[in-house]
């Protein structure tokens, strides 16, 4: 497929920390990690989803002024960014595996409407829902 969404970015407080979280704890892979001065374009990818990249960006110069960056860091830390959803085959097993690696869960796995879902946050405060769907996704 040549058309479609390729990158969606998250704001994170620290790119090294975010990289370690998404790669070591969640099992994503680094797709692109390039720097230009202070700017760092960093994207990761789910191993089953080669056409999609998750960008891990810090708000700041040269793209944003200091005040805007500070506001965004506060918004992320308050958990006010939009929800993210991760599909998994086995929510309970994934939860156990991730918890063993130190992932901060905000909601234990719950059966609902035939699905199982749990909630976790990345170190910056971005909230994820992890869903095991009965229907094939």
């Amino acid at each position: 497929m040549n058309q479609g969404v390729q990158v969606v970015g998250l704001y994170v407080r620290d790119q090294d920390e975010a990289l370690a979280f998404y790669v070591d704890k969640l099992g994503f892979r680094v797709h692109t990690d390039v720097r230009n001065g202070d700017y760092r374009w960093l994207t990761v990818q789910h191993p089953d989803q080669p056409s999609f990249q998750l960008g891990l960006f810090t708000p700041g110069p040269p793209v944003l002024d200091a005040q805007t960056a500070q506001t965004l860091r506060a918004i992320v830390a308050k958990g006010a960014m939009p929800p993210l959803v991760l599909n998994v085959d086995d929510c309970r097993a994934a939860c156990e595996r991730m918890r063993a690696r130190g992932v901060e869960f905000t909601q234990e796995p719950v059966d609902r409407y035939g699905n199982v879902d749990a909630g976790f946050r990345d170190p910056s405060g971005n909230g994820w829902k992890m869903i095991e769907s009965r229907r094939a996704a």
Partner: protein
Amino acid sequence: MTRPSEPDSSQDPELLRRLLRAKDRMDAASHEDWPVRRLARVSAVSEAHFARSFKQAFGVPPHRYLLTRRIERAMALLRDTGLPITEIAFQTGWQSLGSFGRTFRDITGENPGAIRARASALAPELGRVPACIVSAAHRPGLTTAVSEKRRREAGGINGSDTKEQA
């Protein structure tokens, strides 16, 4: 000094992240007791600092936030289960049916039974949306004090009205 009711982007993001952890803990177990001392410990700040910072960050004092979550859970149980209302009151953290019903009416403007009847008519559509998002969308807007709402005594006050008045 910044007034606590104003959003303040100068709050330290590291502090906000720890306050979020306390909010998450209330979300995960809103039926439990959450005295400020316990919440302050989760956030690793002093009790006085916690209450002030939480309100500054999230717009409502921690106890009022907890009440909204309890009512939200009660509404979910009314929607999704056939549990007796007494049992729902107990499960969501109230000590008595009386205080549950009073708080429920104060916040939603309706009786638990009325919410159940209306919500059950909508239930089939909600199955397609993740539960957390359904909960957030139905979260009652508790931006006024419960006592203040009681004083106002207007009929048919509900969550969305409250939000607009804030």
